[in-house]
């Protein structure tokens, strides 16, 4: 019987020749990621009560990113606890202040085609860009995974999101996913896998594909898959991945729950206005909205190609008076590359402040949180009330190019005017 990529991934993890959407399976987890905010410090009590033994430390990764580098003593203590927990429990794959977890998982070769990854963070679906079944779980769930190496999963139906044509200049993957979420709605893909396909997706770099899979959860999806190809394999090889993997693909005659089709060539820059991610408009509808801050960073919009797009817009220009532009590269590796390529210099020259690679501003824990009444245009993934700081602040989600253009203008602007 033909299967979707999603079904094949879970069939393999369950050790079954065949699974169908709707079935509940017990899946072996290839990678279990715990972060500092909802990982060990929340899990520890139950973990100890139920034996306190990590079954497969080599399949676990612990990452301090939400509170690292810490802004206060409480955060510092949480990071210290997390670091100690990893050490005491034999989890040697530990990272601190190296950048948001999902980018690290990709760079370090943990997001592999054909595998299952779970993390205590809802954006674990980022791994879907590699044809990896990545999904977010709660802390009790993760405790079970750490103790047993597996978890139960309902095999989701798959909706194919087909993007035909090519993106035009100044339009990015972020615009594509915002438009998709605007169409599907924030619960439009609940329980489902989204499989992104079509010419526009194939044309995108791995970095830009990660931006798309990252936001699948903003439509309620369990996973946001993209079929692995030469770009996927090259990315892994370029990042020194030596682990073995075996990709799987949807059969042409697999049963899909639906198809949603879009035309990339007519897509224009998009923005998600406060306070829901599906509150999406073309940028042209909200031109001139005044901004106090512009944020370029996170597991959604702080990658090398994002910094490049922003630098292209800002070269020879200055950040508008009264606006703060914060740049947090998505990893320490990207930070170094961007520095070597002169991108950080160009951004700083334009007036940007370069920050550590961290989740800080995106999740409102440190490094650029918003005051009452402030507006921020951000390359990150959520604009819920209170997300980036004050409950009385307003977050507009947009592409890195739109963030840069808006920083230069002091108001929401279409980046294509600047190219």
């Amino acid at each position: 019987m033909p299967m979707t990529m999603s079904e094949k991934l879970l069939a393999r993890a369950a050790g079954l020749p065949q699974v169908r959407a709707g079935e509940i399976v017990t899946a072996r987890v290839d990678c279990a990621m715990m972060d500092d905010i909802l990982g060990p410090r929340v899990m520890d009590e139950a973990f100890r009560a139920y034996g306190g033994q990590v079954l497969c430390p080599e399949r676990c990764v612990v990452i301090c990113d939400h509170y690292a580098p810490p802004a206060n003593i409480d955060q510092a203590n949480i990071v210290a606890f997390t670091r100690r927990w990893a050490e005491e429990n034999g989890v040697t794959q530990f990272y601190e202040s190296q950048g948001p977890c999902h980018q690290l998982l990709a760079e370090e070769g943990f997001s592999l085609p054909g595998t299952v990854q779970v993390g205590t963070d809802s954006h674990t679906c980022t791994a879907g860009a590699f044809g990896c079944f990545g999904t977010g779980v709660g802390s009790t769930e993760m405790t079970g995974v750490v103790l047993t190496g597996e978890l139960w999963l309902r095999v989701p139906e798959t909706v194919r999101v087909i993007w035909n044509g090519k993106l035009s200049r100044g339009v990015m993957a972020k615009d594509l996913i915002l438009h998709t979420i605007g169409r599907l709605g924030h619960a439009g893909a609940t329980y489902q896998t989204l499989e992104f396909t079509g010419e526009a997706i194939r044309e995108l770099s791995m970095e830009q594909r990660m931006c798309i899979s990252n936001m699948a959860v903003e439509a309620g999806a369990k996973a946001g898959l993209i079929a692995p190809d030469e770009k996927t394999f090259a990315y892994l090889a370029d990042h020194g991945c030596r682990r073995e993997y075996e990709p799987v693909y949807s059969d042409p005659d697999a049963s899909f729950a639906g198809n949603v089709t879009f035309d990339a060539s007519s897509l224009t820059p998009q923005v998600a206005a406060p306070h829901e991610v599906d509150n999406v408009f073309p940028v042209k509808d909200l031109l001139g909205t005044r901004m106090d801050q512009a944020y370029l960073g996170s597991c959604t919009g702080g990658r090398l190609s994002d910094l490049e797009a922003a630098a292209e817009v800002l070269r020879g220009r200055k950040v508008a008076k009264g606006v703060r532009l914060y740049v947090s590269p998505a990893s320490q590796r990207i930070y170094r590359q961007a520095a070597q390529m002169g991108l950080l210099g160009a951004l700083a020259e334009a007036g940007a402040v370069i920050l550590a690679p961290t989740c800080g501003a995106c999740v409102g824990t440190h490094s650029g949180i918003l005051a009452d009444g402030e507006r921020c245009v951000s390359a990150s993934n959520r604009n819920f009330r209170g997300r980036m700081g004050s409950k009385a602040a307003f977050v507009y989600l947009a592409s890195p190019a739109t963030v840069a253009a808006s920083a230069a203008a002091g108001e929401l602007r279409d980046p294509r005017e600047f190219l």
Partner: protein
Amino acid sequence: MADTLIGIAHTFGDNINTDLISPACYMERSRQEIAAHAMEGVDPDFAKSVRPGDFVVAGKNFGSGSSRETAPRALKDCRVAAVIAQFFARIFYRNCINIGLPVLICPEAGEIGEGDRLEVDLGEGVILDLTTGRRFSCDPLPPNIQKIIASGGLLESLRR
């Protein structure tokens, strides 16, 4: 877990997110305090009016947003017997099962009235509205999920 539960329905609308069920500002407090503020974002009197064995009955996309477990935990600590909704946000749904709080997906949940007395058969997936006499059928939870809930949650079921 007794297969048949009887209690009163407390009804809610669509898109009730985790911040409304369990406001973030109480997350650092004790479990009892968190439970005392359950559903505060939509019904400040909920924790006072709910009785052990009652049901939360909601519309679409119940529990959207954060993966925090304090949301289902607060309902469980209020001794809510089960949560019934037209459909749930995914992580909330799993968190309920993993902490041993029964959940039922009932496409007709919107037709259950506030204060109706319900008889719920989790094994069969049947809700009998004793107030109106109507009968709603839902997909029963698969046996392995029922086993997790009956054990009191994921970790208890793993211990067994």
